[in-house]
């Protein structure tokens, strides 16, 4: 099977993030593989091990994204593709990314494309479905189980905590949800072998794309951190007075009533 994984480098939301002038400061952030994309990598490796074929990990990013690609290779992916847009594009959104990927996939014969359910930085969940639409193949989002039997694909999909069973056919794009699998640690031999695996670097030029084709469809107005969580308050006194105080606090202070 010809398996592809869409992977994004994102900052680690468990580490400290510094925002200044409406931008996340690069130097202070820790970068990781988007955690949902890790499920996709793991699933791709498992499917390949079961059915044979090859796993190619594709990212649209910058020079530094190589680190995340090498990690996916260390986990067991076979090849990696880095589409570096740093020099060509000022900004981009999900539309931009999907257009670039669509151009990349134009001449590929992908049987299965796996992506994360969402990227934890922008959390739009759009790139996978948009790409499937452009490629005119079916897609299923938030999957928690996947088995392939010939051309038929059996899927369990998370719907707000319930499970929906779906049958589809190859070629197919799926987006991966927590619970699908337990991503492995890259092993030591895996890490050492990763440096010898092929990593192709492309620019939008190589895909016959022009900056103008990729203008984002959305505008980012501002980026800011959520307000700091304040300590809770414990009301005291008679229950009746407490209720009155609570209602007035909700009205006047929190302004939610």
């Amino acid at each position: 099977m010809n398996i592809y994984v869409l992977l994004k480098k994102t900052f680690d939301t468990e580490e400290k993030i510094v925002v200044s002038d409406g931008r996340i400061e690069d130097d202070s952030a820790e970068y990781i593989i988007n955690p949902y994309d890790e499920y996709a990598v793991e699933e791709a490796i498992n499917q390949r091990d079961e059915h044979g074929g090859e796993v190619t990990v594709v990212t649209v990013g910058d020079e530094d994204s190589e680190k995340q690609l090498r990690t996916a290779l260390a986990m067991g992916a076979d090849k990696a593709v880095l589409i570096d847009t740093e020099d060509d594009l000022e900004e981009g959104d999900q539309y931009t990314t999907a257009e670039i990927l669509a151009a990349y996939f134009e001449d590929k014969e992908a049987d299965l494309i796996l992506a994360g359910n969402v990227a934890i930085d922008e959390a739009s969940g759009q790139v996978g479905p948009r790409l499937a639409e452009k490629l005119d193949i079916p897609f299923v989002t938030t999957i928690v189980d996947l088995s392939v039997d010939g051309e038929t694909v059996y899927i369990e999909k998370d719907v707000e905590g319930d499970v929906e069973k779906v049958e589809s056919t190859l070629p197919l794009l799926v987006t991966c949800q927590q619970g699908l699998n337990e991503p492995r640690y890259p092993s030591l031999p895996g890490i050492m072998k990763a440096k010898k695996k092929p990593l192709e670097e492309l620019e939008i030029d190589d895909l016959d794309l022009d900056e103008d084709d990729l203008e984002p469809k959305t505008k980012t107005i501002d980026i800011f951190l959520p307000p700091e969580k304040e300590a809770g308050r414990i009301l005291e006194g008679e229950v009746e007075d407490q209720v009155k105080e609570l209602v007035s606090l909700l009205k006047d202070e929190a302004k939610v009533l």
Partner: protein
Amino acid sequence: MFDLTREQRMIQKMVREFAEEVIQPEAIMIDKEAKFPEHIFKQMGELGLMGIPFPEKYGGSDGDTISYAIAVEEIGRVCGSTGLSYAANVSLGASPIYYFGTEEQKETYLVPMAEGKALGSFGLTEPNAGSDAGGTRTKAVLDGDMYVINGEKCFITNASFAKTIIVTAVTGKDDKGKNIISALVVPTDTEGLTITSNYDKMGVRGSDTAEIVLENVRVPKENLLGDPQKGFKQFLYTLDGGRISIAALGVGIAQASLEKALAYAKERTQFGNSISKFQAIQFKLSDMAMEVELARNMLYKAAWLKDKEKPFTKEAAYAKLFATETAFRSANQAIQIHGGYGYMREYEVERYLRDAKLLEIGEGTSEVQRMVIARQLGC
């Protein structure tokens, strides 16, 4: 020079995640129950951690000494017991076979250890020969094609779980009448070998430590490791390498002490202020941070020299001595900064101190490191 390679950074990240997710949750229990965490060693083996500094053809991962030191540091940062058993397995159990073994010995003994399928031990210390290894009394006498070994070893790490033990023994006398000491590979299922681990230890309680009695233990002549005349030199070289790993363990415990102390100091309020605002506390943290960094630099330098196949005896002694004493000081200060809480098991820093103490004793005491350095200085 002052940057890790991409592979080294990947190894660091992977081992840190593994240590935090798999070992850390059990660290308090491992210490409290003094139980060797076999299941964790199995997983470490599967990840290829046991074979970092060995070539692929012997089941290893073709990594370097710096990568190995990084891995020991990361494991030691969450659990001294696991860190010690890991370091002893690679540096003392497996490395001598890689350095001095024949091709056949490597196939038989090194491959399963590098692949993480078997553990190994190194038995040098005896009840009456600790720092003075030259005083070894265990004897191996050739009888036809077999060596017959008699003697006693004490404080041997991992022996109860090991498949093989490398045992040092007197095999004869040289021209000057001095004892020749050699190393022999003894499979632990050999008849006449008794291994018991009844020590009730202060620290590294989850690391297995055993006493070994050898009574007419017979092993084939081929089990002698390396040059029969140079056994003593060989284990000095082995210990030089082992010291790098103990230094790494010291850096790990010191780093953990610093992190815990810093986090606690920022959180704890007394006299209306975070105690991290008091200069007395700040100076402790500054010293800890500086010493950890210096110890790590010395560790990397010693490992780098070894990788470059340059002499590293003195640097390994510097690293071991400074990093382990740093670990002890840092753990002690971490307890101090935690006040009464630091004295409690739950806060873990008291364990760091107990674990760190062993590092100033094992693989050559601090005094022995100073002797090694003095000898290197030409004294």
